[in-house]
């Protein structure tokens, strides 16, 4: 197990370094940030001063050398636009994203597993059909539309929850509800399919023949075997949320890392782009590691 973690860590570090090199040079190909930071009628002298102040006049390789040197000392550089450490900017946003992702994925996982398992067990019944329809709608509905409709309905017309922002627990309801829908739809489908296969296996028939009740059949015998593909999909969906939920962040004014990343790309705020990528990449690496451990926990064959 330790060897597996060690191997994973080394290969992830190598990928991370590759990513830094790629993003560093690609972002610098997109052009000069001074054109976006300064107004259109700023003089050449102002632009020159801006580039000089931020070390953008040096050859790109020299800039890369400086960047790596600073990085080794834990310095991710300053945000060009916000004039403060890029890592602070990213971590502030990432904390919001992490909370949103953890809460949403916990709710999604529990709900999808319970509903999906019951739907598979009662295959063909009204419950199963409604669950399938809901999951299909959830997996295919555009989240920006759902978000706006949810605001109009629940905030403007009914006045139940605030439209957007942060501050109280009520502010979290709409963003989480909107983020919940798609992964819930997807994971529900996978749970149902995987459970159907497992429920058809000989050991379930044996259990039934022994007189085991329905609940233990679903949650003790079948679920554990049906979980492997489900965990893969949960991992995928969680990784997407850790990268930031741009639409939800934009509409609900949620200060997460997704919108920060998009804004910093559009504004060529190089250090923030790099810091955001490193932080999210690290988080996704840790999550993948957890998923591997979960596999091993569920299936003893993987441990060896």
């Amino acid at each position, binding site marked *: 197990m330790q060897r597996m973690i060690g191997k994973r860590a080394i290969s992830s570090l190598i990928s991370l370094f590759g990513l830094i090199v790629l993003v560093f040079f690609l972002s610098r190909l997109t052009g000069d940030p001074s054109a976006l930071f300064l*107004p259109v009628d700023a003089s050449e002298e102002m632009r020159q001063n801006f580039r000089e102040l931020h070390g953008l006049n040096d050859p790109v390789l020299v800039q890369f050398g400086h960047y790596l040197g600073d990085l080794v000392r834990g310095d991710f550089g300053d945000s060009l636009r*916000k004039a403060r450490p890029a890592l602070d900017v990213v971590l502030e946003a990432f904390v919001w994203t992490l909370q949103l992702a953890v809460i949403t994925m916990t709710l999604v996982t529990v709900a999808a597993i319970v509903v999906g398992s019951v739907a598979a067990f009662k295959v063909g019944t009204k419950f199963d059909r409604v669950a399938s329809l809901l999951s299909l709608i959830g997996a295919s509905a555009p989240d920006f539309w759902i978000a*706006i409709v949810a605001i109009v309905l629940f905030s403007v017309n009914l006045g139940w929850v605030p439209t957007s922002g942060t501050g109280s627990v009520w502010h979290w309801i709409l963003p989480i509800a909107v983020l919940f829908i798609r992964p819930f739809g997807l994971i529900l489908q996978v749970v149902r399919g995987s459970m159907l296969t497992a429920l058809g296996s000989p050991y379930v028939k044996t259990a039934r023949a022994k007189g085991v009740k329905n609940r233990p059949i679903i949650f003790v015998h079948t679920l554990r075997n049906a979980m492997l593909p489900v965990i893969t999909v949960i991992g995928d969906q969680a990784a997407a949320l850790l990268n930031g939920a741009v639409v939800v962040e934009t509409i609900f004014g949620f200060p997460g890392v997704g919108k920060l990343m998009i804004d910093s790309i559009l504004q060529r705020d190089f250090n923030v782009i790099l810091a955001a990528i490193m932080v999210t990449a690290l988080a996704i690496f840790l999550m993948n590691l957890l998923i591997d451990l979960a596999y091993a926990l569920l299936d003893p064959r993987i441990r060896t």
Partner: protein
Amino acid sequence: MKPRYALAGLLLATTTAGAALAQDSEVTIVLGEELDLVEPCMSTRSNIGRVILQNISETLTELDVRGDGGVQPRLAESWEETEDGTWRFHLREGVTFSDGSSFDAEDVKHSFERTQSDQNTCEISRYYEGIDMQFEVVDDLTLDITADPAQPIMPLLMTLLTIVPSETPMEFVREPVGTGPYVLSAWNPGQDIRLELRDDYWGETPEVTAATYVFRSDEAVRAAMVETGEADIAPSISVIEADDEALDHAYPNSETTYLRLDHSVAPMDDARVREALNLAIDREAFLGTILPEGAEIATAIVPPTTIGWNPDIEPWAFDPERATELLEEAEADGVPVDTQIRLIGRTGNFPGATEVYEAIAAMLTDVGFNIDLQMVEVAEHEQYYSKPFVTDGPVIVGAQHDNSRGDPVFSMFFKYDSEGRQSGISDEKVDDLIDRATAASGDERTALWSELFAYLHDEVIADGLLFHMVGFARVAEDIDFTPTIATNSQLQLAEIGLN
């Protein structure tokens, strides 16, 4: 807790919160974009200005945008031109900064020097570009400013210089100190910024005791927030959202849209082609359709409230037949009018930008132009808009320019001088008129700018001027606030009343 009780609890909580807000005279303002900086020398940037300008940091003078009083005193009580190029400002006595230190002439000098420092990238400095300005402290409350070349509009230039204490470092600050009625009390990046009223402000005490600024990029959400009572003012929403007559106010937002033409590249080097372009566009057709009814057809790049704006210039009529004739005449003389011309528009530049440029492209194509419309994002747009221009083939750049400062000087050099960064023309008479108007004062200045506008529009046919735009603000019913032409760049809390 049962859902019913949760709901009741929520309703109770919001009602009590609402009552508490009303008692304290606090307002919440929802802006479209988060502030990157809260730095006084960056307050010419729209959202930064809306928070800082005259709320935290004040200026020596201020432009009367609600009346026609011109330049008014703020931190300076009076001023006069003592000799050619030198202005003497008499500063207000008894003014203190929010850190307790008193305001004097040294602070003004330092504030200017700070904008010129190479240790920061203060945006205000662009208004003083090419002017050698010397600040001489005569005594604590008297200051001489000498400019070379002489600046007849020095009092107007001082409406832009935000004053900071002389101890302020050259680098950008995160806790701005100013003489204004409010002080920055909290800044939670990504979430909100809060200003609170000072108890030792030199001027009249405003009604609003505190303001919270929140940021939502979606216009529908900004409008909804005022509707639900979560915010009191949304200074910028789109015409589509502005559907509530009781809450929504239209205001000229000082932006002018136009098509910048590069006269050095064929076929735009031919005046007939430029005239045809102007005649081909049915400007009236946009008003009340793609663009709001309040937008005005432009005959100059600055709004009508600017000095020298020329009421005698007739907007181009819509005459597609004449446009086609002109193109045929030019073609007969060997002008390559069938060359493909790229029309560059900026996505999201203003509400309905894509539709406006699509319609213009169709109108130009109808009369015989060969137009290839390309909508690009801001960074790419900038590459087309500013010099050095892209040189592979003719390009028309659709752009929007903002001048709420009352004088054309902040626009004309950049947009029309041979050396101007976005100028597509090189005309000696234009350069000369800009130079003379910049140096002139009073009626002479007004007359020279007027002459320049007419010459550019009717004779040079410098560009394809389109519209003076309008913005929409949503203001809660219990708030007394009317947006002005300056609402794009500042939002004085002292001008907000509570009903």
